[in-house]
């Protein structure tokens, strides 16, 4: 098992920032799906690499979601997964909100989950980037569908240089639907610790 990278205070600060980011995205999800959403970050924890899969969406074995990455000042990877059983319902809500326009796409489900993942990932990174006084440009989302273990293994393999893994669980509810979502932020702890230190020092 790999050692955890952050002190309690750093972990608490990262949890605060990620929770703040998740809270920001309700309005954007509402515009996408045509319903008001309530988002609750029910847990934010730093876990060793070998426990990422087990910590993420414990009840789900099959998932849909996306992988995004940034190669800027703070290289970071973001994995967002939803249990597959909510995929049809969420896709239907978003297609309906588009007035049926998105039904013309060859794979509406892929388009919807790439965008849901993008909105969630961008929300968290916005608060992080603004707080650290940097900019982070995320790649376009790459769609993932299938066994959770495969998705997690593929992302961990692509992010070999990272040694810190923050796992978030987000509960999303709206009048039309509800879903659980799991997100993992993968980054190198060293530059992140330095940026957190700089940001704290710059505060009045």
């Amino acid at each position, binding site marked *: 098992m790999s050692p955890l990278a952050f002190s309690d205070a750093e972990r608490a600060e990262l949890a605060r920032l990620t929770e703040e980011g998740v809270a920001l995205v309700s309005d954007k999800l509402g515009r*996408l799906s045509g319903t008001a959403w309530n988002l609750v970050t029910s847990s934010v924890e730093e876990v060793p690499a070998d426990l990422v899969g087990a910590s993420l969406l414990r009840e789900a074995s099959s998932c849909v979601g996306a992988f995004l990455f940034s190669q800027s000042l703070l290289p970071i990877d973001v994995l967002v997964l939803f249990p597959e059983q909510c995929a049809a319902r969420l896709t239907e809500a978003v297609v309906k909100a588009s007035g049926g326009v*998105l039904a013309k796409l060859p794979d509406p489900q892929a*388009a919807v989950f790439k*965008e849901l993942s*993008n909105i969630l990932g961008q929300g968290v*990174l916005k608060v992080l980037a603004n707080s650290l006084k940097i900019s982070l440009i995320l790649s376009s989302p790459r769609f993932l569908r299938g066994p959770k273990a495969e998705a997690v293994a593929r992302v961990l393999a692509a992010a070999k240089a990272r040694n810190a893994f923050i796992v978030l669980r987000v509960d999303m509810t709206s009048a039309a639907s509800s879903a659980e979502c799991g997100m993992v932020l993968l980054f190198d702890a060293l530059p992140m610790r330095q940026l957190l230190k700089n940001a704290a020092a710059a505060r009045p």
Partner: protein
Amino acid sequence: MALRVLIVDDADMYRLILQEMVREMGHEPVGEAETGEQALERFKALKPDLVTLDLSLPDMDGFAVLREIRRANPRANVVMISGNDQDRIVAQARTLGALGLLVKPVDQAKLAALLRLLDGGKRP
């Protein structure tokens, strides 16, 4: 007068949504591009009145495309469209000469307001 709009986004979902929005507002989606290279070729060939430009493209970032477009035509009208509205990203878009940055999912009223201004011969 109908404005001719070039839509640049690697996501087919947003190319479709923006085309529908532009048409509904009485303007003409004159072309689309899914990479930075395509965007530059089509910008030069089509000479659109407005470019909607995604920030994350597969071959180069939207800021690099914005720089090239403004080099080719310093009066080009470009609005960035992105899920990324970090403070420094919004500021950089303005510094590089974009009319602004509309956040995804795109608020139709904000795009309509921008097109109305441009249609009236004004720059926001």
